[in-house]
């Protein structure tokens, strides 16, 4: 049990478990699995009434999802990858490719060379955290969903809009991986 909660789960365990959140939320309260709606609810809480898109009763529409999100935070603390030395067991090829780009510290779930308060105001830290975060918020709202709402909920329901969105996710992701990150990390 201890190792179960301290090691990574194989894909054929993790994937089906992720998929089960769709029927679980439907069965509990006829709710659609989708995380990014919460970003909209947060805007509705912070600036109610100013922009039409955020003018709705967030308690009625989104309280359940915000509570779900709070759970995500709590749950991830409970099982957070232990120890600063923990390394994600990525493939050797990826490790080599990333070290060529200048990533040297492979400990933790995200590279300390990019995701750290000390480098937040360097170009690479700012683009990774601030610009990246902004694009995640803007893009998921524009697309009407993120990886949970479109890739899992939407594709599971065979929805064409979600397929278009997911193709977009990969077009954008590949563009950033091959055209932005090499230049961004080049100075490391």
């Amino acid at each position, binding site marked *: 049990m201890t190792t179960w909660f301290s090691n990574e789960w194989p894909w054929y365990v993790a994937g089906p478990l992720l998929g089960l959140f769709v029927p679980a939320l*439907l069965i509990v309260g006829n709710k659609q699995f989708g995380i990014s709606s919460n970003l909209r609810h947060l805007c509705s809480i912070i600036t109610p009434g100013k922009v039409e898109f*955020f003018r709705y009763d967030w308690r009625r529409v989104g309280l359940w999802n915000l509570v779900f999100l709070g759970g995500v935070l709590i749950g991830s603390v409970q*099982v957070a990858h232990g120890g600063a030395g923990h390394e994600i067991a990525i493939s050797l090829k990826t490790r080599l490719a990333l070290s060529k780009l200048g990533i040297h510290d492979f400990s933790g779930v995200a590279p300390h060379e990019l995701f750290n308060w000390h480098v937040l105001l360097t170009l690479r830290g700012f683009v990774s955290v601030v610009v990246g975060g902004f694009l995640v*918020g803007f893009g998921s709202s524009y697309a009407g969903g993120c990886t949970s709402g479109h890739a*899992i909920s939407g594709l599971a329901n065979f*929805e064409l809009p979600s397929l278009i969105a997911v193709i977009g996710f990969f077009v954008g992701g590949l563009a950033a991986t091959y055209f932005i990150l090499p230049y961004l990390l080049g100075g490391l």
Partner: protein
Amino acid sequence: MTKPIQSEIVGRGVGICDAPEPRPSYLIAYLLLGMAFGVVMTRSEVLSWFRIQEMFHFQSFRMYGIIGSAIVTAAISVAIIKRTGLKSVSGERISIPPKQLGRGIRYAVGGTIFGLGWALTGACPGALFALIGNGVSVMVVAVVSAVAGTWVYGWMRPKLPH
């Protein structure tokens, strides 16, 4: 022309008219499910920048296996729910309102913009929060930025093609 907020919300599957404020007992269920999701996000490592890079480099089957088997599991479950006409524990008839395709621009352009952010942060929205739980505290800034991005979208929405 901006669509009225009502139909937008209904289109997202959380209908304003048919969604009563959830009772506290249900909120506990959502909290527990969210906690379970945080556990799965962490243990599956889908929140890791390294895993996302591995995926976009096509150097491991792992992420594709996870996403693919998640979709298959969800699709089978949804098909069973639809066929049996199951009611939710809260007593509603389970329904999944289809997303409106429209001209499809929002999905293609919005999706691509999201993809850029996904690769740069190495995190989808759920992962941003789970990463904070994992001790990557600087992701608080990414969350604030994501909320700002959402706000800017809401503000620009009447002018953007959908």
